[in-house]
């Protein structure tokens, strides 16, 4: 599937190659881990969808998805020797929140039921007579859901190191020894996604992904203005 242009990587400007952080999408809701899928971590997996339905009881809400995310974590620890669960994996909780925050329809009283969710995942179509949510789903909203879902069934951030051991990692003020404290500070919460976008992030146990100067410049121009009032630490471009 990779095109021939892949060979032209001599003057690589961006830290975007697929190698170092390939496993960041492990434990997603309905896609295989990179390793277990033999590289295919993007195709829809019906078995996982059915597992999600069973765990949530067909109502894909915060409590149900938090439990299912925990099951997926345990599954990856057991089955994936290359498993890595880093700070960017927090985005998976945000993605999971989409099921009950973005997908439900106003014409069904915003209940995240099976028909609604199946329409998105299986048919990849909007349900009939679908209306979207009433208020914009903001950075603050999704960050609150990320932490709420994570803290219902907390799991350690880290990675498998080959001998059956799972090693914890640290990241900034938020993750210490693989865990997020339940008394996490409001400032750290509101800046979470901002910092995932702009800070260096441990992307595997022996690697760190740092956004490029070009990326940070683009961020400063296109994204930063919407975040100025949060008081998050500005990324340095040098």
């Amino acid at each position, binding site marked *: 599937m990779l095109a021939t242009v892949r060979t032209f990587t001599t003057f690589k400007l961006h830290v975007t190659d697929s190698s170092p952080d390939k496993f960041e999408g492990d434990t997603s809701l309905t896609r295989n881990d990179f390793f277990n899928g033999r590289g295919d971590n993007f195709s829809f997996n019906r078995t996982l969808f059915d597992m999600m339905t069973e765990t949530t009881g067909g109502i894909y809400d915060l409590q149900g998805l938090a439990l299912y995310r925990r099951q997926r974590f345990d599954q990856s620890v057991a089955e994936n020797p290359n498993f890595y669960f880093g700070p960017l994996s927090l985005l*998976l909780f*945000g993605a*999971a929140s989409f099921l009950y925050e973005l997908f439900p329809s106003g014409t069904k009283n915003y209940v995240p039921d099976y028909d609604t969710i199946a329409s998105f995942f299986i048919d990849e179509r*909007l349900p009939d007579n679908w209306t979207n949510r009433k208020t*914009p789903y903001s950075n603050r909203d999704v960050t609150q859901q990320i932490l709420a879902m994570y803290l219902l069934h907390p799991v350690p951030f880290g990675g498998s190191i080959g001998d059956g051991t799972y090693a914890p990692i640290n990241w900034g003020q938020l993750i210490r020894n693989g865990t997020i404290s339940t008394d996490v500070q409001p400032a750290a919460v509101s800046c979470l996604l901002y910092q995932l976008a702009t800070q260096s992030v441990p992307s595997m146990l022996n690697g760190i992904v740092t956004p490029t100067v070009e990326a940070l410049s683009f961020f400063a121009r296109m994204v930063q203005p919407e975040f100025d009032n949060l008081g998050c630490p500005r990324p340095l471009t040098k």
Partner: protein
Amino acid sequence: MPSHSWQRCPAWTHRCCQPSIAVSKIQKAPAAQPSALSIQTMFQLHWSLRNTHTIMREGVDEVMGEAASVFLHKATAFTDSSPQHHGTFEVHARKSHTSLFDNDPSLTTMHSGLNTAANHGFLARDGITTFAELVDAQQNIYNVGYDLSLLLAFLGLQADGDLITTKLSIGCEATSRTSINPLLTGSQPGLAGHSTYLYHVQITCH
């Protein structure tokens, strides 16, 4: 000409001019009857006019005409995204058209939300989207906030796309179509080729 007026832009931005004709077609929930020119169709036209140099999408012919002249004004630069404030509205699902990505299944994406967006014409049907298109589509379909839309689009673009053309494949690698210069940028793996940042994980690459 259809009746329309241009919304005034706040002084701080050049981004927000939306012809009110688009807004007037929004049906407040619980909306009943699809309008002849649904908002979804209008957005299809919007996107297609924006990107006519790369693709022609189905759905354009049926709404060509006077309305097109309105949207020609909206044919904008790649980075021209705008905050949208629609509130809840019905997004019509066209039932007639064929599935997307029929021509190139490899450009399907791991994100159910993005596939749905493309299936309804909010994202380019050829699987090559842009920063602005991502920002607008998230708001127009799912009512994602402008701040979060910018952040998510950025995470996808900087990881998997081209910061200069702002183009991004929502499927697998298509560097020859996203990169300003493949020789300089190297591989731009596309969302399905890279699992790190968001769009992998966030817009439902569940």
